[in-house]
């Protein structure tokens, strides 16, 4: 087996956030997304030679796509429902393949998300934690929190919208600082 180049590892590390986002957009489960990322990383690191890789970013997205498709195929054969439609798979793949945002953007975006999360009230963060870290269904969160399912859904949605708005403000500011 040929040694993977340091360069390839560096590229994988550089693009992992984008690749993870792509995988998660289709897999929609943090645990499954990490598994798929892992399979993808193995494929990338085991590629014997660099021939044919003119654009690592595009190539690695292609590898990620194949790994996601294989994951979805497996899930379908296991009878798992709630998988994305073929149309959605095609869309997510297309928009990710076409996305040419600068790599710096992803790092800035993640830092902005971290800052914005810190601005949310602890109670809201607890809701998000239950939903997205612990993976609890809305019904269970509502039961624990003592509210209605609808109210919890709305609160979580509002929190994500607030995060989105905050992240975009940060990114605009970062862009303005970068160009000035």
């Amino acid at each position, binding site marked *: 087996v040929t040694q993977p180049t340091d360069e390839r590892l560096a590229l994988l590390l550089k693009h*992992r956030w984008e690749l*993870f986002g792509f995988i998660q*957009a289709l897999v929609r489960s943090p645990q499954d*997304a990490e598994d798929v990322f892992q399979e993808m990383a193995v494929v990338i690191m085991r590629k014997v030679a660099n021939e044919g890789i003119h654009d690592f970013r595009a190539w690695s997205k292609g590898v990620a796509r194949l790994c996601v498709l294989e994951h979805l195929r497996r899930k379908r054969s296991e009878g798992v429902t709630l998988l994305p*439609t073929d149309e959605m798979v095609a869309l997510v793949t297309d928009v990710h393949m076409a996305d040419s945002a600068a790599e710096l953007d992803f790092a800035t975006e993640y830092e902005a*998300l971290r800052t914005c999360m810190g601005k949310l009230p602890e109670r809201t963060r607890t809701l998000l934690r239950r939903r*997205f870290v612990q993976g609890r269904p809305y019904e269970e969160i509502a039961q624990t929190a003592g509210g209605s399912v609808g109210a919890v859904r709305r609160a979580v*949605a509002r929190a994500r919208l607030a995060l*989105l708005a905050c992240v975009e403000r940060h990114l605009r500011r970062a862009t303005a600082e970068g160009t000035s």
Partner: protein
Amino acid sequence: MSTEDANPTSRLTSGEALTEEILKYLDRDLSPDEERALVSAIRARKEHQRLFLRLARLHAGIPGVLAAMDGEESSGATRKRWRFGDRARSERRRWPKLATLGLVLVGTAGAMAAVTMGLRWARSRSVSPPTISQGSPRAVGNTKGVNVPAIVPVDPAMAVQPPAATTQGPSAPAGTPAPPTVLALSLDFEAQDPKVMITQGHMTASPGERRGQSVVGTVDLWWPSQYTVRIERHDAPLISYLDTIVVSFDYWLEPGARKLSVITWNRDKQQNYGITFQDVVNGTWARAVIRLEDLRGYLDLRVPQEQGDRISQLLIIGGRTSGERMFIDNLRVEDVPAELLPPESSVHAPSP
């Protein structure tokens, strides 16, 4: 019937409605028909596609960011000790492991105290104060780059178990009445232990002539060049640090592998402590015996671990993703009487 009913896509032309629908998709709350309508709406305009990408990344980042913040908030006091270090570098390098902390539930402090007390149980000797050893940490892997959240499954049902006393210390001399070694953790990977979580690596048939199962390392989001076995628990520290704790395990590295690292995440010091061996055994089972006091800080060498520090993760990293796999078996964490401590950490102990 309204126009919107007739053509659900038209409802999604406003940014707000589209955002709401994308979030529902990410929550798996859309029916196939609703999803197809969303696809049409996103395809229709470039800005919708950008919005989708941004929301998808935001959604992917939330768990990791929250987990990281949990780690930071619970250690605000101790982080002041970083005054010696390069703050910017520290911020960047501690992120990956912060992100893997997962949720630490209320009551951790009490559980930690219980574990620490348990480890001291049956022991009446005093322990030496921590010292700052010479030497430099050998960084393992590459934690630079964009901060991606590692997603950690949470099992809130895990319960703290009191440690058990044993006299089977790693190096008890024959014929000597040995003070009891306190066994804090023992994993043979034959069955899932409810107290701990293997968040990296999975149980599989052992290689070589060994029967039964071991755990094979898998690819970590942060150190993708090597295989990792990561063991942790979220309701309580995996280990409460003492100078006399020894971590030992059998390992099998496929021929060609050259390195083996043992790394811990110290919640109280907010940094990784680790040790790397270059002289590993290949192609057969061997045993690593690691004294926790030999691990060095990755961010700030001058900050030693202290008695009672909460160690929430144990990582064993070895092999290469491009080639040699790594298997781990019979992991033990023991508080060993000072007189029975191995003279140094080693990866050459014979495997039983």
